[in-house]
């Protein structure tokens, strides 16, 4: 599959709804661009040490994630109708020991970015020791997706500060910003990352070309933040 046209149908297999509100799809375009244009991982390379890692930290509302994994062949679409049922591998929060292609289990907020820091540190150590280089000379990267309200969790700020100071340039954070944080982020989400030494970018979270450009922008020596702005949750 090479387009997003099948994603609403795949999501409907889980939700039973023909149409989905914007909250259910806030991550859909970012996820699609990541898996379609950015991440170097396929069902065939999903167990390779040199694969790119994608961590869904915002595990709440994972239908878009499951739909993209199914569209890209990681997940059998026949699993989708069982979503949330006792015998299904697809829960309301993903369990990576059950979901093919999922790198972490998530649901409790504020765990994905700190885990991603550890993963990037681990990959950096293995790369430095001469491992994990691909035939074309590139090395695996780590991408983590959080929500803007998820940044309320203090654990993220331990991770943001350390990753910036450590210059973890294999680490990429995508914050899907639907302005749902109760107390907001005056001055912008980017400011919190930039002051800690991150490279930062903002893109329209529905514009695939802009997202791809932001996600693939060079950021030597620094971790990279992309704020993907979508429709506000409360209007």
């Amino acid at each position, binding site marked *: 599959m090479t387009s997003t046209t099948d994603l609403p149908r795949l999501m409907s297999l889980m939700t039973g709804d023909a149409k989905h509100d914007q909250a259910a799809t806030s991550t859909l375009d970012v996820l699609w661009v990541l898996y379609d244009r950015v991440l170097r991982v396929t069902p065939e390379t999903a167990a390779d040490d040199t694969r790119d890692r994608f961590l869904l930290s915002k595990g709440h509302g994972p239908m878009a994630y499951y739909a993209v994994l199914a569209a890209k062949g990681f997940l059998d679409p026949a699993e989708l109708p069982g979503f949330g049922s006792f015998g299904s591998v697809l829960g309301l929060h993903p369990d990576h020991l059950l979901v093919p292609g999922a790198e972490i289990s998530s649901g409790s907020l504020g765990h994905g970015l700190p*885990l991603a820091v*550890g*993963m990037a540190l681990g990959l950096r150590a*293995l790369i*430095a*020791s001469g491992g994990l280089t691909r035939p074309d000379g590139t090395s695996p990267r780590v991408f983590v997706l959080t929500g803007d309200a998820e940044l309320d969790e203090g*654990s993220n700020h331990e*991770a943001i500060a350390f990753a910036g100071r450590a210059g973890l340039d294999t680490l990429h954070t995508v914050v899907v910003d639907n302005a749902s944080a109760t107390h907001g982020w005056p001055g912008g989400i980017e400011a919190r990352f930039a002051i800690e030494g991150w490279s930062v970018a903002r893109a329209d979270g529905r514009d695939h070309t802009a997202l791809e450009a932001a996600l693939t922008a060079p950021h030597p020596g620094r971790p990279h933040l992309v704020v993907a702005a979508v429709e506000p949750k409360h209007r």
Partner: protein
Amino acid sequence: METMRERFAAVTSSLLAEQPRLAVVLADISADSFEPARQRYPDRVINLGIREQLLISVTGGLALAGLRPVAHTFASFLVERPFEQIKLDLNHQGAGAVLVSAGGSYDFADNGRTHQSPGDVALLGTLPGWTVHVPGHPDEAERQLRAAATGQDLVYLRLSTAANTVPLAAAPGQLTVLRTGRRGTVLAVGPLAEPVLDATLGLDVTVLYAATIRPLDTATLRGTLGEAAVVLAEPYLAGTSVPAVSGALRDIPHRILGLGVGRAELRRYGTPAEHQAAHGLDARSLRESVTSFLDG
């Protein structure tokens, strides 16, 4: 005598040379001891600063990337503060790790409640898969550390400034029979072995020693059981291993007394010896508790 914590830093620093996938994660505590190793292996000795949630999450992430992480700080900040990170970023992710604590229950007696962690073993007991070592001597700690460093499982190594004068553990993971008797069993954990041996001098009891309390060596406990009366002496929250002992004896009518650190806050400073006595874990108090339980 060299402390367990000093031995830990020395042995782990040498293991980094032998095991290319071993990594050490710190949150400032003991960073000075690891500085030479950090200079040699800057990618595998990582000091995060005072960030204990991140300490555990990074440990989980390192494991998911294929490394064998060893995380270390004081017990109160390693287990109690980031407990949800242990539950989710280690257990739930299926990630293995070695957590090495220092300070234990009342090593920092004069620091007060904030630096005391009597509940750590009980907390980890709510999660599956943890091996819990409570060494009573630096040699025991070293053996446990070396084994854990080559594994892939979840290991908690609880280091203390309290220690027995000699190593007492025989086979790894198994209870060691220090003394045999007929009237009951006293199971001493880690640094409480010698106080228990002093306390039970002349008593007709079996004394078992555990340097590893999870999983519990139920075969030795049952195999050496005389009268089914068991006293547990644990250098952390009283009663922590009562369910494990009771479960091991589920088909035998039995009595159990769980001795250990009291649940109530002491709100006292002073020395570890004073706290040990205040919790009834000095030899004289232990003897009173054991004899009154056996006679009761």
